[in-house]
C-alpha cells in the first residue's frame, strides 16, 4: 500500500508496510501514481509510453526513463509497494504473554473545576465522589509489581478528577513505590495530570523530583479556556492557572511536561490556541479534539473536518516558520519518530488497554482504561483479588490493527495502531470498530508530521 500526497510544496510518498518515506519530484510523483492505477509489476516500457503521452515540454525522454528506473529500484529494494508481511506475524502478537506495565490511578473522583466537556462528568465518572485511600493505592502498586513480569519500567499516572485534591496520598504512594524498586528491580515512572488550581511551589518541587512527566490542562486563549473550564462558581480559571503553569514549565527546564488542551466546535480555529500557548512560553504542547456524544453542542461534527484539516496545515506551516526563527516548539500530535519509532509489534497491537494498561478507581476496581471507568460491565477485577474477567481481557488482547475492518485500507494504521478502543465502543458499541472523525483527523496529522520531517531533511 502506498499513500502519496502534496503538502506545503513537498511531494510525499509513504510506503505504508515498510514505513519508508520518499520525497519525490513531480515526474516521479506522476509515475508512482501510474503504478498505483496499474500493478506494481507493470512493464516499465508500458509506464514509459503512458508517461510520454503526458509529457510536458520541459521533460525529455531520457529523464522519464531515468525517473522510471529510480522507481523500479525502490520497488526492487522493497521500500515502495512493499508487501504486508505482518498478517501472519499478528498471530504471534495475539498469543504473546502480556504483562501489566502501566496503571492509571484515579486518585480522586472529584474535581474543583466544572469543565463542560469532561468525559469524567466533573470527576465523578457516573458514580459518587471519592478519594483513593493509601491502602488501596498501595494494593494497586503491589498488583502492578506482581503482574509486570520481567518488565523493568512501570508507569503510574495519577489521574482524576483532580489528583491534587488528594495530594497527600500521591506523595505517600510515590514513597511506597520507590521503597519497592530495589527489591523487585523495577523503576517507577510516575506522571501526574492536573488542572493547576491547587498547584503551589511545594507541589512543583515534589513533582520536579518525582514525576517523569506532568500534564497541565489548559485550552489556549483565555476566552476559550474560560468558556469551557469554569470554576465551581462559574468564574474563569485561566488567570488562576496560567502563571503557575508558566512557572512550573520553566522549573522543569521546558521539558518532561505537556500543556494539554482540548478543542471543540467552539474553537475550530484551535491553531490560534496552540500558538497562544507557544507565545506564553510553553515548548511542549498538546491540543486534542474533544471526543463527546454527537448531540453535545460543542461536539466535532463531520462537516467540521475540512476546517480542522486547514487548521492543522496552518499550524504546521507556522511551526516550521517559528523553528526557522529559533522559536520552535513541539506539538504532541505532529511528533513522529521515523528513524527510531516503535517496532511493528507495538504498532500492530494497539494501546494495550485492558492488558498492559488499566485504570484503578478510588475503591480499587480495575477497568481496561480510564475512559471505561463508570461502565460497570467493563470491570475486570480489583487490585486486591486481581483480574477476574479474563474473558473480557482476552477481547482487549485480541484487539489490533488486523481485527478492525476499517483499518485495512488505512495508510495511518501503523501510527495509531488501530485507534482508541473506548472511542470505538462509545460510537459503535464494540471495540473493534473505529471512531471515524478521529480517524480522519489522525490521517491528516500523520500527513502534516511527515511533511515536517521532509522539511527538516531539506534543511540539512
Amino acid at each position: 500500500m502506498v499513500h502519496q500526497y502534496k503538502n506545503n510544496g513537498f511531494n510525499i510518498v509513504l510506503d505504508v508496510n515498510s514505513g519508508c518515506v520518499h520525497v519525490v519530484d513531480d515526474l516521479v510523483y506522476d509515475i508512482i501514481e501510474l503504478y498505483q492505477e496499474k500493478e506494481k509489476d507493470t512493464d516499465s516500457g508500458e509506464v514509459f509510453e503512458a508517461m510520454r503521452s503526458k509529457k510536458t515540454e520541459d521533460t525529455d525522454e531520457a529523464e522519464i526513463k531515468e525517473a522510471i528506473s529510480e522507481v523500479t529500484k525502490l520497488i526492487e529494494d522493497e521500500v515502495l509497494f512493499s508487501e504486508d508481511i505482518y498478517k501472519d506475524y499478528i498471530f504471534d502478537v495475539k498469543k504473546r504473554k502480556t504483562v501489566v506495565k502501566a496503571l492509571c490511578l484515579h486518585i480522586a473522583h472529584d474535581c474543583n473545576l466544572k469543565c463542560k466537556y469532561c468525559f469524567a462528568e466533573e470527576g465523578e465518572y457516573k458514580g459518587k465522589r471519592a478519594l483513593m485511600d493509601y491502602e488501596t493505592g498501595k494494593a494497586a502498586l503491589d498488583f502492578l509489581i506482581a503482574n509486570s513480569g520481567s518488565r523493568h519500567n512501570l508507569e503510574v499516572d495519577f489521574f482524576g478528577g483532580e489528583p491534587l485534591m488528594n495530594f497527600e496520598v500521591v506523595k505517600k504512594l510515590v514513597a511506597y513505590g520507590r521503597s519497592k524498586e530495589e527489591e523487585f528491580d523495577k523503576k517507577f515512572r510516575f506522571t501526574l495530570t492536573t488542572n493547576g488550581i491547587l498547584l503551589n511551589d511545594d507541589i512543583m518541587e515534589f513533582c520536579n523530583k518525582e514525576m517523569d512527566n506532568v500534564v497541565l490542562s489548559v485550552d489556549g486563549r483565555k476566552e476559550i479556556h474560560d468558556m469551557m473550564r469554569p470554576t465551581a462558581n462559574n468564574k474563569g480559571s485561566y488567570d488562576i492557572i496560567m502563571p503557575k503553569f508558566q512557572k512550573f514549565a520553566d522549573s522543569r527546564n521546558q521539558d518532561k511536561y505537556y500543556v494539554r488542551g482540548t478543542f471543540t466546535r467552539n474553537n475550530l480555529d484551535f491553531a490560534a490556541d496552540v500558538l497562544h500557548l507557544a507565545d506564553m512560553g510553553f515548548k511542549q504542547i498538546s491540543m486534542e479534539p474533544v471526543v463527546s456524544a454527537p448531540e453535545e453542542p460543542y461536539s466535532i461534527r463531520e462537516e467540521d473536518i475540512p476546517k480542522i484539516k486547514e487548521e492543522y496545515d496552518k499550524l504546521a506551516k507556522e511551526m516550521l516558520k517559528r523553528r526557522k526563527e529559533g522559536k520552535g516548539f513541539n506539538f504532541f500530535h505532529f511528533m513522529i519518530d521515523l528513524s527510531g519509532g516503535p517496532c511493528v509489534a507495538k504498532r500492530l497491537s494497539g494501546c494495550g488497554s485492558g492488558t498492559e494498561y488499566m485504570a484503578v478507581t478510588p475503591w480499587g476496581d480495575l477497568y481496561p482504561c480510564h475512559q471505561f471507568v463508570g461502565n460497570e460491565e467493563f470491570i475486570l477485577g480489583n487490585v486486591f483479588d486481581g483480574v477476574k474477567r479474563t474473558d473480557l481481557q482476552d477481547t482487549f488482547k485480541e484487539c489490533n490493527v488486523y481485527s478492525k475492518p476499517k483499518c485495512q485500507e488505512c495508510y495511518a494504521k501503523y501510527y495509531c495502531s488501530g485507534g482508541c478502543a473506548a472511542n470505538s465502543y462509545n460510537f459503535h458499541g464494540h471495540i473493534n470498530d473505529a471512531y471515524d472523525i478521529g480517524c480522519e483527523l489522525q490521517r491528516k496529522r500523520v500527513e502534516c508530521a511527515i511533511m515536517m520531517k521532509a522539511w527538516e531533511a531539506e534543511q540539512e
Partner: protein
Amino acid sequence: MKHVKTLNTRNLKESMKKGGCGECQTSCQSACKTSCTVGNQTCENK
C-alpha cells in the same frame, strides 16, 4: 537518486527481528488520554 530523496526511516520489517520487548511507554500515559498515538513513541530497545 536524482528524483527521489528517501528520508531516514526505520524499516518496519527490520523491527520484526528484535522487536516486541514491551519496554516502551504505554501510549495513553504520555499526553493524550483521548486518542491513540503510537508513531511518536520512542523505542527503548535500540
